[in-house]
């Protein structure tokens, strides 16, 4: 195992209520269902027992992982440590909803070894929370962050959603200030995206909801990066800001540079040895497959150099670190620089990227249009 330490992702699909914007693999479920799910997750871990990867991050994502009982989370962690190779210092992330984050629960999460608590605050404006269909109030969010700080996690992170219809720059700035005032070490700012198959998607189709125009989105995007940057929260990815390098999500970083990861639970994706595979999306079929003693994989793909390079561009141009051209050449034998010299010159002249010591680094304007940039490159 010469590779960099891998990441383990555990998907907890349950939510008390499905948010109108969410297109993740989520479902509602009572305690009995959750318990049954936990048994199956433990069984899935067994199916990967001895998997030839060594993990140094464990990430509970969802859904709402905080909907599981502390004991359930502890059992999962214990099984992971017993059946999979984990580094001595293994960083544990837990996503939690403010309404689940009682003072006791928060303290218990810390006790069982959670290092980063990521709170789904989403908005610090009552109207925003109502629009987003969240169950908690602004005060719930405030208290949760406070208790989390008391419990002395390595990193307390909060998620915010912006780009709500009608949101003005001054609204967003005020919200960012409120977020900063809570004293987290990490902030994720996700622009509201309306997906097909969600409640918002339906409303949009009926003409009752409109996504903010891209110019206005762009303004809010730049505002977040400038404002948080000035407050000491350097952005390191399109949606991620940290109070210091040690607070960056070292788990998410693995997704962006093709470090291996194993994903367990419904819909979870894994990547290892230039192969990506993914689990059955719905919980029941996922459970059934496990009951048959099989890994609940729905599909897989083997990535050729071209696809890997495209992904590197796509994810790399979303990060402040940019794309390591030398590494791409060494890893996949693709010389992006010589194939795209004039494109890079043009993008640099337009102020979208900079070439910095063999790295192609997006400027803030470049970061805002990273999706389009990635599509421009010729892949020899």
């Amino acid at each position, binding site marked *: 195992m010469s590779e960099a330490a891998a990441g383990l992702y555990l998907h907890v699909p349950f939510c008390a209520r499905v948010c109108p914007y969410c297109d993740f693999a989520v479902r509602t479920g009572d305690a009995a269902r959750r318990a049954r799910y936990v048994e199956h997750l433990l069984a899935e871990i067994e199916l990967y027992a001895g998997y030839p990867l060594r993990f140094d991050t464990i990430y509970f994502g969802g859904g709402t992982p905080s909907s599981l009982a502390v004991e359930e989370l502890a059992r999962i962690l214990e099984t992971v440590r017993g059946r999979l190779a984990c580094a001595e210092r293994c960083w544990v992330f837990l996503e939690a909803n403010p309404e689940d984050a009682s003072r006791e629960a928060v303290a218990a999460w810390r006790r069982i070894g959670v290092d980063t608590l990521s709170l789904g605050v989403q908005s610090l404006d009552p109207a925003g929370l109502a629009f987003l269909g969240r169950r908690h109030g602004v005060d719930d969010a405030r208290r949760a962050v406070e208790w989390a700080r008391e419990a002395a996690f390595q990193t307390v992170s909060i998620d915010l959603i912006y780009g709500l219809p009608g949101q003005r720059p001054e609204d967003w700035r005020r919200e960012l200030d409120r977020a900063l005032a809570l004293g987290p070490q990490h902030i994720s700012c996700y622009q509201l995206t309306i997906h097909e198959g969600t409640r918002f998607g339906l409303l949009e189709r009926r003409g009752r909801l409109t996504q903010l125009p891209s110019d206005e*989105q762009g303004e809010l995007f730049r505002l977040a990066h400038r404002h948080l940057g000035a407050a000491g929260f350097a952005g390191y990815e399109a949606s991620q800001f940290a109070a210091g390098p040690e607070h960056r999500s070292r788990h998410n970083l693995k*997704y962006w540079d093709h470090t291996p990861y194993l994903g367990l639970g419904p819909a979870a994706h894994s*990547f290892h040895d230039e192969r990506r595979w*993914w689990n059955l999306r719905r919980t029941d079929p996922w459970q059934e497959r496990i009951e048959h003693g099989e890994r609940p994989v729905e599909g897989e793909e083997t990535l050729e150099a071209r696809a890997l390079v495209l*992904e590197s561009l*796509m994810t790399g141009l*979303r990060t402040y670190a940019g794309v390591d051209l030398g590494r791409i050449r060494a890893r996949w034998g693709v010389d992006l620089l010589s194939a795209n010299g004039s494109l890079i010159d043009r993008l640099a002249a337009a102020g979208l990227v900079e070439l910095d010591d063999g790295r192609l680094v997006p400027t803030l304007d470049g970061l805002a249009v990273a*999706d*389009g*940039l990635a599509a421009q490159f010729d892949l020899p």
Partner: protein
Amino acid sequence: MSETRNFCIIAHIDHGKSTLADRLIQHCGGVDARSFRDQILDSMDIERERGITIKSNTITLDYTAADGRTYQLNLIDTPGHVDFSHEVRRSLMSCEGAILLIDASQGVEAQTVANLYLALEYELELLIVINKIDLPSADVERVRQEIEADLGLDPSDAVLVSAKEGTGIPDLLEAIVRKLPPPALDREAPTRAMLFDALYDPYRGVVLYCRVKEGVIRAGQTMRLMHSAKEHHIEEVGQLRLKRVPTAELGAGSVGYVLAGIKTVRDVEVGDTLTDAERPAAEPLPGYKEAKPVVFSSLYPMATDEYPELVKALEKLVLNDASLTYEKDSSTALGHGFRCGFLGLLHLDVVQERLTREYDLSLLLSAPSVRYRITLHNGTVQWVDNPSYYPDPSVIARTEEPYIKGSVMMPERYIGPVMELCRERRGENIEFHYLAVGRVELTAELPLAEVLFDFYDRLKSITQGYGSFDYAMLDYRETDVVKIDILVNTEPVDALSQLTHRDKARARALHYCERLAEAIPRHQFKVAIQGAIGGKIIARTNIQALRKDVTAKCYGGDITRKRKLLEKQKEGKKRMKTIGAVEIPQSAFVAVLKTDTDS
């Protein structure tokens, strides 16, 4: 001994010509019910869809009349659009009689009149048929009055039919054999046959459709085409039933086909006269006119790797369309293509549709142009139909453009707006006269170039569909033309260059800029779109830079999905043209070059 009648049906579009032909074929048992498709003579899909006939088709029918004799009826189909009037002529030249078909509710229309004049020019016996008498809006009396007033014909023995319902068809067949004259039967004279159509059969080569006027054509003969002076060995002759039926000979008066191993329709000129090489006729048949293209446009494959397919498709297309001309052309923006000449806008449309539909090609067409006559200061004359070859204005002494004589028939109430439209289009000598109570014909001399841009559509909308338009080439007149270039981020898009009248240049350039700005997706940088004459910018629009497209999240599961989206996007880019680093989708060229709502 002659039991033959050669006739055609002439009618305005939509007056039911194809349906009537179908009914005649059905009645004479030319086709069994199972294999009968409506409008069987309109074999191309485009013809079926648009209800117009482009290639003429011909069929021989057997009809046993009330007098007990069996007649051979040769129904020579004629194309139904003004662009193809040369084809109409050849068809008419092959007949002794014509059915003049008039819609019982629409009455006499522009094209009816135009075709009637042609028929009279060739001294055809006319049989007036009023169709669609089943329609609630049919007004046979009014139509009779129009026939008398507008056409100067006697309406009293008009045959009333409903081709759709089959009403009146037996009467019509009787009238055909009684009223239309038999052909002259001079079998002894040197052979002369009118070549009125030619189409390409992949197995047998070119099939010549001809009408034997004098003499006999047989397999084994060596025939000579009198205008082109080429000789061919005849392999087979026969009748045009629903299939080709070989016969021993084609004698004077008959209509049929000739196979002579000819490879392409380029090698023959429709309208030419066939004669026997060993005993040639002294003179060809009269009335031969060369079909000249008047509208020009460049065709480019959207994907450059489709160029070889475009070459093949055009080669095949011209096998069957002798009036389409093409030569190599190339554009910095669009790569290799062809400059094509068409008989008119409809012909252009038809060619484009056939290439797209039958050959599955994705095409770009440059703005259609007329052919200008340019006299330089040194006295030399150049014909320019391609903006790329427009000379430096400083060497031009004088430019002339083609004019047409246009005729619009319409109800009286639309005369004001139609005159206004003609004036707007630089019309001269606009005149009108009453055809009948409430019906007016307006004539105007118009630059053909002005008719190329959405004239039909404007006319239709102004007259709420009641106006019909017809035109004939007139002459060349002095004009003031400029070349407009369209620049994208300062790089000219040569395929969008065009020649236009100076007074219209600014409006047209702005229109192009705006269309292009709407159709080009936003880029990561600002895109300037300009219209220019020479170095002078006369119109400008901008496409603001895209400010944000990055999606919120990109984790494990999103990566595959997102990559697939990007791959699709990259695939799509292959079908775009990059000009000045700006990616222009085909839809943008299409939107810009569409002529429906020109300024």
